[in-house]
């Protein structure tokens, strides 16, 4: 075995008396080549639906989002920030309990709401609200946000992600359905009068 390590010691076509070496254009070699060509054509034709199938989750943000009710307005007292949960509008029957989503609802006036995604703008861990110190804190890497969602300290580069919200009848609705990351569903928080006193780059 050692002797044959780096040389191809298989007998060449000429040595075996086999005259159908690759260099010669023979009917058989032509058929092999055509066969390979036909196979690649079939392969490419099949690849198109396979690629479409693989890429099927890729869709514009808007197509994944729809208006979801967070419940009656009176659930959210003015001046407070409360945890709300809703069912993911894109749920599948086999999602189990993962179809639930949590968010923070801040009601600043009778008709003014700010709804923040639960996910920290750093790496998506669930932030917790501390009413005593009026701060959101993240348990993972220590990101901290002020009550208005602007960044206070820690590794996040920006404030909390915010959902679009509206009031329909006596219900609070948000436009949701996507995991909030820096490239999906990311919205700048309203920085006017932000406590952090610095613009939130998004």
């Amino acid at each position, binding site marked *: 075995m050692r002797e044959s390590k780096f040389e191809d010691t298989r007998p060449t076509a000429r040595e075996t008396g086999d005259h159908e070496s690759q260099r010669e254009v023979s009917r058989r070699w032509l058929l092999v080549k055509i066969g390979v060509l036909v196979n690649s054509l079939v392969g490419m034709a099949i690849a198109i639906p396979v690629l479409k199938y693989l890429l099927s*989750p*890729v869709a514009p943000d808007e197509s994944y989002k729809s208006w979801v009710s967070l419940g009656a307005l009176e659930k959210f007292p003015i001046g407070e920030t409360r945890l709300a949960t809703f069912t993911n509008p894109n749920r*599948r029957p086999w999602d189990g309990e993962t179809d639930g989503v949590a968010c923070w609802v801040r009601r600043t006036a009778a008709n003014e709401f700010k709804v923040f995604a639960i996910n920290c703008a750093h790496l998506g861990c669930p932030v917790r609200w501390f009413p*005593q110190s009026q701060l959101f804190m993240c348990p993972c890497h220590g990101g901290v946000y002020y009550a208005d969602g602007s960044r206070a300290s820690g590794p996040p580069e920006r404030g909390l992600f915010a959902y679009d919200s509206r009031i329909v009848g006596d219900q609070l609705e948000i436009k949701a359905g996507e995991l909030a990351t820096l490239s999906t569903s990311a919205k700048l928080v309203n920085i006017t009068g932000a406590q952090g006193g610095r613009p939130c780059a998004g």
Partner: protein
Amino acid sequence: MRRLKRLFDWFDERLQLAAPIKEAATHRIPQKTASWFYVFGSAAFTLLMLQVVTGVLLALVYVPSAGEAWNSLNVLNHQVAFGWFLRAMHGWGSNFMIAVVLVHMTQVFLFGAYKYPRELTWTIGVFLLLMTFGMAFTGQVLRFDQDAYWGLGIGASIAGRVPLIGAPVVHLLLGGPIIGGATLSRFFAIHVFIIPGILLASASLHVWMVLKLGVNEWPMPGRVVRRTTYLEEYERLNAREGVPFVPAAAWKDIFFSAAVVAAVAICALVLGPYGPGGQPDPTIIQTAPKPDFFFLWLYAVLSYLPPSLETPFVLIAPIAGIAVLLALPFVSGEGEKSWHRRPVAILILVTLVTSWAVLTRLGTHTPWSPKMDAWSGGSPVPIQYTRGASPLERQGAVVFQAKQCRNCHSIGGDGGQRGPTLDTVATRLTEDQLIRQVLQGGGNMPAYGKNLSPPEVTALVSFLEILHPAGEPPAQNASQVQAGAPSNQSGAPTDATRSR
């Protein structure tokens, strides 16, 4: 016996496997490589086989559905006979596999085994390492608990940092817009079909190349690798002092593999399976997600990087790291193999191992994470700080506790470590500096200006002012200290604070 031999011959006449196997088993290896340093590769392969077997056994019961996975893991743990043991074997087997693969890689690096003609063996080895990490991460997802759910969120957040195509990458990773049934299904396919298939094929190729190219000889200082002469020298070495792989070296491989599998089984028996932790309900937010052991270093890196460096780092560093590993044998494919003559290599290795160990230890303690219940569930303000304190200072201690200061600042050895320990803060900051720090924050501390009333600030700062050792006076603003005036040893609030 003769009948057995006839049976064997009958099969081999048709299989034609005995000759090549015998040839592979008895191929000559340099005598000094029949060493305990050369057993890690075979142990890694043994562990891969163990993972395949235990994985298949777990798949007999596990349900790869987001709605049922967590329940089926609990059934495995509690209701199926020895289900817990197989889960534990698979989990500990995974830990051991990563550890053994890393030790194997370190040995190969130290012994210069990646040099000519084994460059491609190293390249495939790097690929195998990445696949092993891929198995570890996807396996953590299949243990579909809270950590798995939020770990996926972290993965998606990192993917979301990719410029331009961030959103499609997130969607492809999750199989949709958000973590759910589609996510678990695709991670199941990746963990059970895709990566294992690639792993088995590449590992076989890796072993094939080791057989064909021969085991790397024991490095000797001064024995320099040159493309023109190496093969000949290796042949001569083997002719002079070569020994057949079986049994000269194989017995050590066999014993070490047995020891490793036994160690996995003992860990599984004594320490049990990993989780599952809390149920994967995203509306339960009282959780502090943490990655598995081998990703703790990354967890630490991500919390210490300056925010502006983070995106470039997480996107560029892995690619750069892999590129360096892949380029290694092509950049230094010749030359000295011995670690006695490769100081830079040793230095790099020591630096990497030390950094990894330090970051992993930090990742275990997470000093950067606020302790979310330190203010409510931890111990109260230590009594030595409130004994003999004025009512205002005691009120300050209440503010300190109630405003969650303790989630980030420890006092009396209890509390978060995100911010500095405050037991001696009065010796570091003057009263005015304390007020400014509380109101305006800064240096990674939020500003409390709007969340504390002026009386609360006054009380809090007067409490902080008493936090200094008995023999050491609190810090004072030198410009305000009058010559000959008694220093403010007690830390009682001054007029300046009172007037606020």
